Structures are given as C-alpha cells and as structure tokens.
C-alpha cells in the first residue's frame, strides 16, 4: 500500500551507543551482499571455462590483476566471515548461545577467525607460489 506521506521517525543510528553485536550483524548483511556480487564473478569464471582457452586465460588475467587480487582477498574475508557468523545464527536458531558471554566470545571468534582464515589461505597461496 503506498505511503500517504512520510511519517516522522525517531533518531536511532544518530544516538544509540555503538555495540559489537549490531556491528557484527550489519557486517553479516554486508558480507552477504558482497558474496552475492561475487556470485556473478564465479558464474563468469565458469562460463569462461566453458568457452575457448584464450577467453579463459583473459578471464584469469583479470582476476590475477592487482585490483582483481585485492577484490579476491576481500571476497575471501567476506566468505569466511559470513560462514562463521552464519554458524552463530544457526546455533541461535536452535536456541543455543544467547548468553552474554557466549555472544561476545562467539562474535569475537567469528571476526578473528575470518581474518585468520583469510590470511592463512592467502599466505599458503603466496608460499606455494600459486599466485
């Protein structure tokens, strides 16, 4: 139903104290959107694989360019964070992990774990000269 006119809204983001919980929550949404965009890149890569070799190598060169690599690292973080925080959500869905300490610890593990896994994967790639 179309809104008759814009209704006044109480201030929220402007005045509510910053909290780790809400930050992790919005980060889950943001990483989700980034991964949705990444789906485009993934499908593009599959499509190039179905084409000829020249086209595939052109696509790989694009992904391996400095900007491409930067985006891939970003997507790696988005993937691991969304995965780990997603696990938190699944635990909440079965009713576990709502306690204050549990929330804080699991949140920290999700954020730090995502950083660690991203660094780990890319260090391994660098070390084994796969780049």
């Amino acid at each position, binding site marked *: 139903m179309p*809104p008759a006119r814009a209704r006044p809204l109480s201030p929220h983001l402007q005045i509510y104290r910053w909290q780790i919980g809400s930050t992790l929550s919005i980060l889950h949404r943001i990483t989700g959107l980034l991964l*949705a965009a990444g789906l485009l890149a993934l499908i593009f890569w*599959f499509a190039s*694989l*179905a084409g000829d*070799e020249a086209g595939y190598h052109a696509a790989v060169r694009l992904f391996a360019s400095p900007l491409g690599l930067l985006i891939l690292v970003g997507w790696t973080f988005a993937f691991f964070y969304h995965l780990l925080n997603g696990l938190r959500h*699944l635990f909440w869905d079965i009713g576990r992990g709502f306690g204050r300490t549990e929330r804080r610890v699991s949140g920290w593990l999700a954020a730090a774990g995502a950083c660690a896994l991203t660094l780990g*994967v890319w260090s391994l790639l660098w070390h084994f000269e796969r780049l």
Partner: protein
Amino acid sequence: MGRVLGLGSARDGTGHWWAQRVSAVALIPLTLWFVFSLLLLPNLDYATVRAWLGVPLSGVLAVLLVAVAAHHSYLGTTVVLEDYVHGPGAKLLGMLLLKFAHVLLGAVGIFAILRVGFGT
C-alpha cells in the same frame, strides 16, 4: 480496523525462513569442497580445471553449488530489498530484477558446467 484493511499477521514466511537455513547448511560443505578442491589443484590452467570439472562427482557438486548459492543469495538479497526499498513501483521492479538475475546466473552457471562435463 486492521482486519478490515486486511492487515495483521502475514501467516507466511516460514517457508522462506526454513529455505534460508536449509540452503545455508547445504552451502557449508559445498563451498568448502569447492574452495579446497581448487586450492589442491596443481594449477588453475584451462586443461587442469576442465579435467577436474569433467569428473562426474565434481560436475554434480559444482551444479549443486551454483543452484543452492543462487537460491540462498536470492533469499537474502530480497530480504535486504524489502528492508530498504518501500516505494511500491521500485520494490516490484527490484523484486523482478533480483529474481530474473538469480535465475539467469543459475542457468548460465549450470549450463557452463554441464558443457564442460559433457565435453564440448
């Protein structure tokens, strides 16, 4: 008054909620399999990746990955759209675009994988 206007509980949304969880759980092994399979390949050359994807199990799992990821992404992005876009015209257009984009992406991905798998 709410009842007259047809407002009140939507009595719908459980399906969406459940589908999001089921696809999420399915994506855990699917994405991890995909990432680690690629990492374990000797290189990402055309022939190497095509050979890997040509193995029936890899092809099937890759098709499932694309389909489930596209569905999970569709469910998630539509929720985001609903949260931030309220104008009826913009919302409807957004919903259609999201649906068509995800279906198209899924179709292209699956077609490409099958093409490699069946060897053309």
